[in-house]
């Protein structure tokens, strides 16, 4: 319905519009013929609605086109303006170009002119050149004719020359033949000459040979000369020899005369030899005779001895005879030979007795002598012993001195040892080596001292000996009795000193042993790597192999533990599933992640115990604190509150007359307190009514009760 009215309205509006528009459209008639035709169509079709609609459409289109055209016009105008400007610009440029071109053209025309002038110049030159050329051609022709004539002449000359050449050749050949013959001649002469030369050479050689021969001859001659000289010398020698020979001949003559004497001499020799043999025999005889003479002389000596003996015997005989005569005279004195014989026997007996006596005496003498000898020996012995004793005493005296000194040293040493031992004991580890060295030095000092002492003593000893010897020589008797008096005292002291020495020596040995032990111990400690911590320190590189190995070990251990854990779990899984479990590893992983694993359990347990401990401590603290709190409450309010049963509280007053006087309150569900009846409440019904039933105030009730009790108590007091 609305649409219909709208269409109608639109038609009317359009009609109005058309009627209004017609005047305006006249202006557009001048624009183009198309517009005018368009106008005619619109006016023609304005009657029908369709035509109207079409018109409307068309007009709309036209409008659109118009506006579009206007746009295009504007655009075109703008374009035109731009084109104009561009045109102007182009024109200006063109003009510029034109100017340029004009200039170029002028230049070109100038150039052309120049070129034309050049062409003219060149043409003139060409003409001139052509003329020259013709001239040259003429000259050339002339010269050619001349040359041809010359050539002809030359050819003729040539011919002539060839003839001449042939002639000359002929002459030359002749000459050559001549020359050849000459050459041959000369060659022959040359050969001759050569032959001559050879001959002369041979002659020369011969001459040379001769010369050489001559030289050799000369040398030979020289040799001969020398020989001649030699021969002359020999001759001289021979002359001398001859003279000698002559002399010799004289000698030989003399000799020959002598030789004549030779047989005589031989005879003489024979004679002499014979004589010689005879003489030898005589000599031998002589020897024999001499021996005989000697034996005879011996015999003679013997005979002479016998003779002298005989004389002696005669004298003896005479003496004996005289003796006999005397004896005979004695016999004649009156005694018979028997008496004589008796007397003789008596005498013989007495003689025997005497002999016996003599024997006895002699034996006695012997025994006495022996006794003497023995006593003398004893004496000597005792003397030597005495001397020995003396020397001993001296030695002992020296010994005493020495020992006393030694003692001093030993005591010193002992003190040193003691010190060292003390130091060892006090400082076993520290500076032991130092002590040892100091000790060694000390010992060395003492040894030096000993040596000195020994030297001194030896000197003293020698002196003493020499003195002693001198003294003994002076007064040997005085020296002897002094000895025993000294010796007894000395012996005692010596003994004492010896004992002491032995003791000290033992001590020294002990301390030496100790020292040795300590030294070995020090050495051992040193070998074991001991050190002085005050002076040195031990360092090592921190990333050393041991540390690394330990770290690796620890890591490996950790890894193995983990592996062990998984394997254990695996076994458990397998056991649980009866060996048929699928995806065992997965399950194991799951299980390991679960807190049921023993490790986590352990951890949890540890945590639990920790927590429990904490809790316990807290509880303790709390109970302590609550105790305090309750105490404080009791002190402040005068009531002691204890748990009676669950949700029931026993309240006891500070001023209660007996232990049984207490209230029991029960806590209800809504935190309200209710007083339960006890023996104590039965006496307090008034106050209960007043405070609890009416005012429902427990604190007031309790305070009234405390006041009452306090009053009764104070009254009692």
């Amino acid at each position, binding site marked *: 319905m609305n649409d219909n009215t709208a269409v109608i309205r639109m038609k009317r509006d359009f009609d109005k519009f058309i009627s209004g528009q017609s005047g305006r459209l006249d202006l557009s008639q001048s624009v183009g013929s198309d517009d005018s035709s368009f106008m005619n169509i619109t006016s023609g079709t304005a009657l029908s609605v369709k035509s109207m609609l079409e018109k409307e459409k068309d007009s709309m289109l036209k409008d659109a086109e118009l506006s579009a055209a206007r746009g295009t016009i504007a655009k075109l105008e703008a374009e035109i303006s731009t084109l104009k400007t561009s045109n102007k610009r182009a024109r200006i440029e063109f003009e510029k170009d034109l100017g340029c071109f004009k200039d170029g053209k002028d230049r070109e025309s100038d150039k052309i002119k120049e070129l034309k002038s050049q062409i003219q110049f060149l043409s003139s030159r060409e003409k001139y050149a052509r003329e020259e050329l013709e001239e040259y051609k003429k000259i050339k022709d002339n010269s050619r004719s001349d040359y041809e004539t010359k050539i002809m002449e030359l050819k003729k000359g040539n011919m002539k020359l060839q003839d001449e050449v042939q002639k000359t050749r002929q002459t030359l050949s002749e000459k050559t033949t001549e020359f050849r013959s000459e050459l041959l001649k000369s060659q022959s002469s040359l050969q001759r000459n050569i032959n001559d030369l050879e001959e002369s050479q041979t002659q020369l050689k011969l001459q040379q040979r001769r010369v050489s021969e001559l030289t050799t001859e000369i040398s030979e001659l020289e040799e001969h000369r020398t020989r001649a000289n030699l021969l002359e010398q020999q001759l001289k020698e021979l002359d001398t020899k001859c003279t000698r020979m002559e002399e010799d001949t004289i000698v030989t003559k003399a000799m020959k005369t002598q030789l004549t004497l030779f047989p005589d001499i031989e005879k003489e020799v024979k004679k002499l030899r014979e004589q010689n043999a005879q003489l030898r025999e005589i000599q031998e005889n002589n020897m024999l005779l001499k021996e005989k003479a000697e034996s005879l002389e011996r015999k003679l000596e013997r005979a002479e001895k016998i003779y002298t003996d005989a004389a002696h015997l005669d004298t003896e005989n005479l003496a004996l005879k005289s003796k006999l005569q005397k004896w005979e005279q004695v016999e004649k004195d009156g005694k018979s030979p028997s008496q004589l014989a008796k007397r003789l026997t008596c005498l013989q007996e007495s003689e025997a007795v005497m002999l016996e006596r003599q024997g006895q005496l002699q034996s006695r003498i012997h025994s006495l002598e022996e006794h003497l000898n023995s006593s003398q020996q004893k004496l000597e012995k005792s003397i030597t012993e005495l001397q020995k004793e003396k020397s001993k005493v001296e030695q002992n005296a020296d010994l005493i001195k020495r020992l006393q000194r030694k003692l001093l040293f030993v005591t010193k040493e002992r003190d040193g040892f003691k010190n060292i031992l003390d130091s060892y004991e006090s400082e076993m580890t520290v500076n032991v080596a130092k002590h040892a060295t100091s000790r060694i030095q000390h010992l060395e000092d003492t040894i030096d001292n000993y040596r000195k002492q020994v030297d001194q003593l030896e000197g003293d000893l020698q002196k003493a000996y020499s003195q002693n010897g001198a003294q003994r020589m002076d007064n040997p008797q005085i020296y002897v009795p002094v000895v025993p008096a000294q010796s007894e005292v000395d012996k005692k002291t010596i003994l004492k000193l010896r004992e002491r020495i032995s003791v000290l020596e033992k001590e020294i040995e002990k301390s030496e042993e100790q020292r040795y032990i300590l030294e070995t111990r020090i050495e*051992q400690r040193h*070998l*074991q*790597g*001991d*050190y002085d911590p*005050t*002076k*040195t*320190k*031990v*360092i*090592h*590189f*921190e*990333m*050393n*192999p*041991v*540390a*690394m*190995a*330990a770290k690796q*070990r620890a890591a490996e251990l950790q890894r193995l533990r983990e592996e062990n854990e998984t394997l254990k779990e695996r076994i458990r899984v397998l056991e649980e599933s009866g060996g048929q479990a699928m995806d065992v590893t997965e399950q194991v992983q799951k299980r390991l992640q679960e807190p049921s694993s023993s490790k986590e359990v352990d951890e949890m347990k540890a945590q639990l115990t920790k927590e429990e401990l904490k809790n316990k401590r807290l509880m303790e603290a709390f109970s302590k604190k609550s105790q305090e709190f309750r105490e404080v409450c009791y002190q402040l309010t005068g009531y002691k509150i204890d748990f009676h049963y669950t949700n029931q509280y026993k309240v006891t007053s500070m001023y209660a007359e007996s232990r049984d006087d207490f209230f029991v309150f029960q806590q209800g569900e809504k935190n309200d307190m209710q007083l339960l009846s006890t023996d104590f409440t039965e006496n307090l019904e008034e106050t209960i009514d007043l405070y609890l039933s009416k005012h429902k105030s427990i604190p007031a009730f309790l305070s009234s009760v405390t006041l009452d009790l306090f009053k009764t108590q104070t009254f009692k007091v």
Partner: protein
Amino acid sequence: MAATATQNAITLKGSTEIVSEFFSFGINSILYQRGIYPPETFTRQQKYGLTLLVTTDDALKNYLNEVISQVKEWLQQMTVKKLVVVIKDIDTKEVFERWQFDVECDKSVLSDGKPREKSEKEINKEICSVLRQITASVTFLPLLESACAFDLLVYTDKDLEVPDSWGEDGPQFIANSEEVRLRSFTTLLHKVDAMVAYKKTD
């Protein structure tokens, strides 16, 4: 003549070089002989007229180089008193062996700086005999049955400043030990006495 003259003089630096080189070879020999590291990780090397075994293990090499270079510095300062190779059980940390090298320094060289007269050949001969003894000592040392590792201890002066990578440690004594003194050598500047202490076997 000049060449031989210089060879016979031992300077502090040269002495340090000789001693530290000896330490290197000595430690390597001990490690090989005592089987602290597997024998296939060692390679042969000619030195002092002997065939010595030297490790090829890189970690060990680095460690030894680190320690030896530091010890070299201290040798030059003459502050080293001992170098000890301690062999101990990895698990129980019980010390089985101590190879001790005492170093005696002639400190007068620090003031006068004069080189000492001794031929290198002679020193090498002495070192050779020490190394031979180390090798031979395997015959009397007890067998190391458990897994062992080693540590190097250095005894130095108390007041010496040490790098952070070094730490103080104990002397690592062996309880109930037996000791054997080995040979020694001297460069006239440093005297090195070798000895070994080991746990007595029952």
